[in-house]
């Protein structure tokens, strides 16, 4: 029998969400995530667990790629190709933590940018809130990251670097990275449907940003050009603050970090509003 309990009524018009505010968007996000949390869990289960089901190494892959990346940076440092400046701790430990943070940021970006693609198989057939795809992707990324990060901490200790208590605040410290990465990704998820070239440029731009952010070198590197760029690059303050707090328990960039964090929240809400206003009309271009 049809579900008599369901008294939902909805009206679709051309400008359905045009008047939604950024706070309205936030409220809608929370409402949808709460209502569809089981869907997020089911999709997460499908994508996370199943991605390793056919692999002999399984979740081991989460460790292999960052470790190989660390080995290559350390090798470049050891051979003198890379001069990272005074990083304050062993370079291997420095690059292990920094590249983990950067990969997490890129993971958030990837989660956002694949929001519409992730459900392409049924996005035009079944009605459901598409932002659950973003959070499913974020969960997959976070799960992948967490397993690797716990082992990275063990490796840090082996390398003689004991993280400070700020390590427990890590989930909070990375929030601005989530808002910027996921926000940018969500925006380019829309753009990639109607302007593929621009979203490809964005991906290239982020690859370039890696070199203009003090990830594999110190923030105060002895290079005027890089120093200038680092000073105007908000990512510098986020990465440097998180890294310094975990290594040394202090940072000289609290002010910048908090300001960028606040702006990142507003940026994410702005993009979320754009997403709500545009998603249905962008989705029809996926035909």
């Amino acid at each position, binding site marked *: 029998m*049809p579900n008599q309990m*369901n008294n939902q009524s909805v009206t679709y018009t051309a400008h359905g969400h045009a008047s939604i505010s950024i706070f309205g968007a936030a409220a809608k996000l929370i409402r949808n995530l709460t209502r569809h949390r089981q869907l997020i869990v089911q999709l997460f289960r499908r994508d996370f667990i199943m991605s390793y089901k056919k692999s002999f190494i399984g979740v081991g892959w989460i460790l292999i790629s960052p470790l190989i990346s660390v080995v290559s940076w350390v090798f470049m440092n050891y051979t003198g190709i890379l001069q990272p400046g005074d990083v304050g701790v062993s370079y291997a430990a420095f690059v292990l933590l920094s590249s983990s943070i950067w990969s997490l940021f890129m993971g958030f970006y990837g989660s956002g940018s694949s929001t519409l693609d992730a459900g392409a198989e049924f996005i*035009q057939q079944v*009605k459901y809130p598409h932002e659950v795809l973003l959070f499913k992707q974020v969960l997959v990324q976070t799960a992948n990251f967490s397993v690797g990060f716990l082992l990275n901490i063990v490796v840090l200790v082996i390398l003689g670097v004991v993280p400070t208590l700020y390590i427990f605040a890590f989930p909070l410290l990375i929030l601005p990275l989530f808002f910027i990465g996921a926000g940018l990704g969500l925006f380019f998820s829309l753009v990639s449907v109607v302007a593929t070239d621009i979203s490809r440029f964005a991906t290239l731009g982020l690859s370039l940003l890696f070199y203009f952010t003090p990830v594999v070198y110190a923030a105060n590197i002895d290079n005027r050009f890089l120093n200038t760029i680092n000073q105007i690059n908000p990512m510098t303050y986020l990465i440097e603050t998180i890294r310094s707090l975990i290594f040394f328990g202090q940072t000289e960039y609290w002010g910048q970090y908090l300001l960028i964090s606040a702006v990142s929240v507003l940026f994410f809400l702005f993009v979320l509003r754009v997403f709500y206003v545009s998603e249905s009309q962008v989705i029809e271009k996926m035909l």
Partner: protein
Amino acid sequence: MQAQTVIKIENVSKKFTRSIKRSMAYGSFDLIRKIVGIPVNRSLLRPSEFWALEDVSIEIRKGEKVGFLGENGSGKSTLLRMINGIFPPDTGSIRVDGSIGALIAVGAGFHPHMTGRENIFLNGTILGMKRKEIESKLEEIIHFAEIGEFMDAPVSTYSSGMRVRLGFSIAVHTKPDIMLVDEILAVGDLAFQLKCLRKLADFRDEGGTFIIVSHNMQVMRNSCDRVVWLESGKVIESGNVDLICSKYEASQINKSYADEQSSQQFSKDNKISLDPQVKITSVELLDEADNAVEQLTLGQPLTVKIRYNAMRKVLVPIFAVSVHNGDGQLVIESYSDKEGLNLKEIAGEGEVVLKLPKFAYRPGIYSFTVMLSEQTQLRKLEWHEKSYKLSLINENLPINQGLTYPYPNWSHHDHRTT
């Protein structure tokens, strides 16, 4: 008292773009305007855009079974997606009261490495069911899908039929207030199709509202209370199922007839003459009033008039007429010598007439082949292969999917003793 309106479609239009590049350009342009808050006028067509739906207004009441009928590209599936909230209208509004379930993408989101059981939870959640609801219906879903022993095997090991059965079973158990169904008879084997139809009938009997899109007139006639005929994005007519289905079939037949007349396949030049001295000079299809016709109403008499000109004496001439339906099936084959016309010879000009008292076949286009032989079927003089066309339409007979309509007459005799 009239039932409550559950779907109200008011002056809805939807446009799409023919060119992909322009579609992307307009999409980018509209996205920028939305970001900066400049409203987009969606009621105007830009170059390369066309109306997939134009000024459509339909009202559907609780418990109604409505069929959307129309050719490919008429806008049926677009309208279904808009009711489902996937595409927004460009003008007008669609109000939906109640939950919607769509039997459209059965099995959407299935993961091949997950078991059938795991996929029930995944797919059921995608379709809006809660975990507890799925748990309570799990056995029913498994039983309906008929894949009990494979339930804990990965879906990748399923046949395509099993996969579709499982997808359909999950979708049909979501129990929405309004069910959207797209080409239901494309699901599984015959037994499963019958089971699906029965499930839909249960849904209907329990007061559910459903909208069905199908090319199958029989499904429309058996399942719907009302039909909406769409063509090029506009509502042509809405109302009585039999009447509109018949009109739609007639329109389809007329279109096919026009297409076929212009196609090479049915060229009137497809005539072979094996004796230059003997000619079939004309063949006419005549109605009851002896008017030459290209279209006839099902069940009416039809006459085939064959004129010839023999410049020599033809001994024991045999005329033959065969009729094929649109699927190429032979429905009539008639030889003059076997059916009462034993001619000894013909010479000069003359005509033979074949009368068919009731031309009662399934509506469609029929092609007539006319032959003339001498003494034996092996000695052909003239052969006009499928050179004459007749479109047959139905006005009010309850014709089904059978090839012919033999004016059936059912009766019942109760043998119980009282």
